[in-house]
């Protein structure tokens, strides 16, 4: 998407995405940043998959909840270069400001696109808790239904962070991998030779529905959002303590809500970003809650294959978790050839595993100190 040669980390997981092929109009593409396009297209897909449409959707009882960490950062980066004449002017020139610049500044514009195209007129929110946004937006959507604010929530997340400013700031803290020669194997969560994460992009949206509402219309139910919790580490904006205490607390709370104990969890979808501090932090967190069960509960990182799409990844991981339930197969951690001795759990290395999968715990961790946990129960749905 741009020339990466001046950067330390030069690889990324880009989506093969043509907005026109996905049905967006020139006008929609003209006003939407790539992140909004991801959200819009994902929303169309999930609605179509749910069997609901503009006619049958209960508009006033349908809300929207979209997570994003860095919003319209690609457009902000590009438009800044235009209005500032590539950084030459501090008092930037308004004559070069594009009409949708405010929408790029304020990412609530992303959820507007989802609401407009679906016809949802209930509560709308953009959830922007950094890299846990994708879990938190779904948690927020489920809470809206539990609290009675909506019967249906279009919830999920999108991010399109592959822009010069994002790559530069991750370079500065050496969070992303410098292994530019072998992109496919550069993301190596839990591996001894891991070297940081690979930036990604994308989106995933879900139709969440009050259970009775879904049953009455005979909807196919993938799974129930059975528990969700978020905690802060109150420690550091980018650092994690190795003990995993706060993530463990979020996991415990989410399991309590789901009324499940650790031996009833079939699969853990890890944050698994592939930084040393993350992999150890999250391994410690899982051990804290699961005890001996930690060693026998499969836990894998999708980021080994799709990279880290910041706020979007939590929802993409929920989608993968739902499919794990659907297909009784858990996805692998790719590129895990020699585990870090400090990371001694069952990370499902290299190949997917067929196994009965009814319940999934998905965890996330993000800048700002946010730790989130979400529990899916596939038995709660079709029963």
């Amino acid at each position: 998407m741009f020339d990466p040669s001046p950067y330390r980390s030069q690889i990324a997981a880009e989506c093969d995405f043509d907005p026109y092929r996905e049905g967006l109009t020139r006008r929609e593409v003209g006003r939407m940043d790539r992140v909004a396009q991801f959200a819009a297209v994902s929303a169309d897909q999930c609605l179509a998959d749910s069997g609901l449409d503009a006619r049958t959707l209960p508009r006033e009882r349908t809300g929207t909840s979209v997570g994003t960490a860095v919003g319209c950062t690609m457009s902000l980066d590009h438009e800044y270069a235009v209005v500032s004449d590539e950084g030459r002017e501090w008092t930037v020139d308004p004559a070069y400001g594009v009409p949708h610049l405010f929408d790029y500044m304020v990412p609530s514009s992303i959820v507007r696109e989802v609401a407009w195209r679906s016809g949802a007129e209930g509560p709308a929110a953009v959830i922007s808790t950094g890299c846990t946004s994708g879990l938190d937006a779904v948690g927020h959507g489920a809470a809206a239904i539990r609290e009675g604010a909506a019967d249906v929530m279009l919830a999920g997340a999108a991010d399109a962070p592959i822009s010069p400013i994002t790559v530069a700031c991750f370079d500065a803290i050496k969070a992303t991998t410098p292994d530019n020669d072998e992109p496919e194997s550069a993301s190596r969560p839990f591996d001894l030779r891991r070297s940081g994460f690979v930036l990604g992009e994308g989106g995933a949206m879900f139709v969440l529905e009050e259970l009775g509402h879904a049953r009455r219309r005979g909807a196919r139910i993938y799974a129930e959002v059975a528990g969700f919790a978020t905690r802060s580490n109150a420690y550091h904006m980018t650092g994690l303590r190795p003990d995993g205490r706060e993530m463990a607390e979020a996991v415990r709370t989410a399991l309590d809500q789901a009324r499940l104990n650790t031996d009833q969890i079939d699969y853990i979808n890890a944050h698994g970003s592939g930084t040393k501090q993350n992999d150890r932090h999250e391994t410690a967190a899982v051990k804290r809650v699961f005890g001996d069960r930690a060693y026998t509960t499969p836990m894998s990182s999708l980021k080994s294959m799709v990279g880290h799409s910041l706020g979007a990844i939590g929802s993409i991981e929920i989608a993968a978790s739902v499919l794990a339930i659907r297909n009784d197969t858990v996805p692998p951690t790719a590129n895990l050839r020699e585990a870090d001795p400090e990371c001694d759990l069952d990370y499902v290395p290299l190949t997917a595993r067929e196994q009965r999968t009814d319940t999934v715990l998905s965890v996330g961790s993000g800048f700002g100190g946010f730790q989130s946990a979400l529990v899916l129960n596939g038995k709660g749905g079709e029963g």
Partner: protein
Amino acid sequence: MAAAVTGLGIAAPTGLGIEDCWSAMLDGRSAIRTVSRFEAERYPVRLAGQVPDFVPSEHVPKRLLPQTDRETRLALMAAEWALEDAGVDTGQRDEYDMGVITASTSGGFEFGQGELQKLWSKGPGYVSAYQSFAWFYAVNTGQISIRNGMRGPSGVLVSEQAGGLDAVAQARGQLRRGTGLLVTGGLDASICPWGWVAQMARGDMSRERHPERAYLPFDRAASGYVPGEGGAVLVLEESEAVRERGQHSYGTIAGYGATFDPAPGSGRQPGLRRAIEVALADAGMEPEEVGVVFADGAGLPEADMAEALAISAVFGARTDPVPVTVPKTMTGRLYSGGSALDLAIALLCLDRGVIPPTANVTDPVPGLRLDLVLGEPRPAEPASALVLARGHGGFNSAMVLRASDTAPH
């Protein structure tokens, strides 16, 4: 149970702290001035509500100065004041029993401008490591939780001007689910050239040069809005626990409703009226019980009319009209900080028994059917207040507050 507000921290153009801001608003002293932070002469829009006399080093640890945008410095100060006001000693509480949920509209935008300039003029190697978190929308929640050792539930909402109400509503939800204390609200600050040009792109900022004529919601001379910076932080606690420790409460969050407007051209009605109705139903209140409405006050003829219609649709059947006020005429629109500040001012209004006025509006549009509080503060003893906020793009949020002595036991 009820969600009681025990602490307020205010950083507003009309003043730092509760007393400075409140007395300015009762006097009707507007803080809208020509922008001083950059060369505003270059731009056709030059007025803003800027937070005065804020010296960051007096309120923020030196270590945090290089890594924080102005909005975060204001937020850290306001959070500290709110906790102090609530009489909370964070060291004496369970760290998981305290959470932080804030709204943000633009993140640390001025910080972001600095780093974008380095990127484009010097190269990627000059971008600060702090850019990885100092500009993003979650920064205030993260920094407040770290500074105060709060490890409970966290949250960040972006819904432009409606964000302040949406964050407080999410905080109330966490309180109901068992967290004992929530620091919530919203703070925004994007008065830098890059933020200015982004805001101008909306096309609805006022180009009027006279500060007292620039932002006139519901007035015949309405010509757009004036932006501002700042906001408010609130401390929420469960009302029973507040009574037990003998702490003063400003009032309770009694009801909340949020809707989204249909797409343009759909022929369907906008959602503000329904947001008000949902909020009243949530509070278990009839329109007759509302003592004052803090309106959104867009400052644009069409949007003002739509708001007036929504208010009169809900309250029009009353024998005594409900007083409506827009104190943000003195600060400009502060985005998510604006609705948080409106909540703080509405709570002070309930606590102190006087309604702050709408400044500068002298010639309301005929036929609005609103009892606007103009010019002078109005003595009143409202038992409850309704705060409205509309976020750019179609967000409608309404929150009902109840005076503390009328909170259900």
